[in-house]
């Protein structure tokens, strides 16, 4: 076969493939018809969503998802939990595979152009840096040109490489990034501050510390398709209701998260609105 033939074939095939159409509909009506809510969640990300000893998916966000399902469809079990990773969750939402992202989704401007955010149920510190106790750096700038483990699809990746000149070694899954850090494939690992702090509490991580503090704080929210007003309102109403009932504070305790001012403040605000 000549390369010419292959090229022509390739171009034709690419153009044909390009015709793919995408469905758009009213999600609220849709899920009521299907009687199930499809939610993209994390299953490798304690405390938000992870597998417990019985191989069940549990976590802070999972509780919230079940609460919302109960509000919208009348049962916490009318929910289809679909594990997603940072690099595919928006695509899965926009092509209709899932109705809602509840997967540690940070609120950023770039994302706001392609999806709508729900109420910001958690405010998490942005990325921080986990490294060995002996590490001598404590500023982002000091990491320039160093190998740092990260995760593909994290929103801060471009800032870190472009602005701070860090050489990111990006994995698709979190466990593999931890493993690589322990194997000393990288001098440090960059990820959401909350998760890293939680990791420090686990056995085997005594020799590590948060070496560099986050350079920004970032609210986390659910994500829905753009222009899906009715559904967005319904989800928001459910979140605010949960906040007003102090459920988020309960879950914080249940999953060993440090008490957050943001959640407490929102609980107050929710009650104020309700009264």
């Amino acid at each position, binding site marked *: 076969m000549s390369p010419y033939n292959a090229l022509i074939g390739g171009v034709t095939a690419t153009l044909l493939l390009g015709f793919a159409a995408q*469905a758009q509909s009213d999600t609220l009506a849709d899920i009521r018809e299907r009687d199930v809510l499809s939610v993209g969640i994390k299953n490798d990300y304690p405390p938000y969503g992870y*597998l417990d000893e019985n191989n069940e998916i549990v976590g802070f966000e999972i509780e919230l998802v079940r609460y919302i399902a109960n509000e919208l469809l009348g049962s916490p079990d009318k929910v289809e939990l679909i594990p997603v990773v940072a690099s595919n969750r928006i695509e899965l939402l926009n092509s209709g595979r899932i109705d809602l992202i509840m997967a540690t989704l940070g609120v950023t401007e770039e994302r706001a152009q392609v999806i709508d955010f729900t109420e910001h149920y958690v405010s998490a510190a942005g990325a921080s840096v986990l490294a060995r106790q002996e590490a001598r750096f404590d500023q982002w700038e000091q990491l320039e040109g160093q190998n740092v483990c990260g995760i593909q699809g994290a929103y801060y990746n471009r800032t870190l490489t472009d602005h701070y000149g860090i050489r990111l070694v990006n994995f698709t899954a979190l*466990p593999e990034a931890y493993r690589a850090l322990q194997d000393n494939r990288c001098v440090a690992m960059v990820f959401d501050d909350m998760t890293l702090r939680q990791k420090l509490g686990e056995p085997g991580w005594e020799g590590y510390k948060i070496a560099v503090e986050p350079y920004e704080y970032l609210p986390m929210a659910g994500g829905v398709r753009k222009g899906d007003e009715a559904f967005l309102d319904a989800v928001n109403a459910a979140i605010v209701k949960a906040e007003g009932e102090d459920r988020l504070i309960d879950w914080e305790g249940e999953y060993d998260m440090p008490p957050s001012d943001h959640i407490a403040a929102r609980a107050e605000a929710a009650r104020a609105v309700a009264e």
Partner: protein
Amino acid sequence: MLTDTRYQRRKRLALLAILGAAIAWIAFDALLGGSAEWARVISRLPLLLTGSGPAWSIQGGFAFNVLMGMLSMAIATLLGLLMGIALLARNAWLRRGAFMIMNFLRNSPWIVLLFAMLYLLPHRVELFGTTLSFSPFFKAVVGLSLPTAANFAEIIRGAVGSVHSGQWESARSLGYGTAQIYRQVILPQALRRMIPGWMNLYALLMIATALATVTGVQEVVTLLRTTLAMESETALVYFYLTVLLMFFLYCYPIALLARRLENRTKGDAI
């Protein structure tokens, strides 16, 4: 020098000895308490095999790989047959078109095709008022079946081409028509030669189902990687070996059988 049969017998014995030693080592390690790592592996085995906890309902895991492999093979066989027929068609445009599509699919990496399918196929389509939803599982099946179909078409073409041209001449001189020659003379012989290739392709496809991990399907590699988040470092090697062994135990017998069939058809008049 040893005679051929004695040589082969010794070689087979050596192979069995190595395998036996490996099994004995695992058995000692796992069952006689040689290490705690195998105990960890065994506790996670239901998850890795079926994607569910102790309940043994099939929600993913290696069972998904098997299922994906079978569904993709079914689709690929059908598509490949159509493509193969087009490759042998008398219409030059049809032939050229099929050839181009086949080469395109054969020259693209499986993992890239899988990704492309993931984003290309809609997740839900409305058809005659009913909503069909395309799960990542379904998309992975489609993504895997495309290159497999192209490879199968090539196998068909090769098998038909390998039937000696003298047979065409003799069949034609006996007054057979083209379609008749295909049906009565060529296909019965070509089919015998296709079967080993088809089986090898299935083994290849089965191995490729591991790639579905990039589409987020909860198949065995995905579950392996998730599970390892909860396991200690020392168990790592054991978990990887276990999953590698799953694939090997499934694919090796198929490859072996294919080779045996291949050797049998080699004696056919060519």
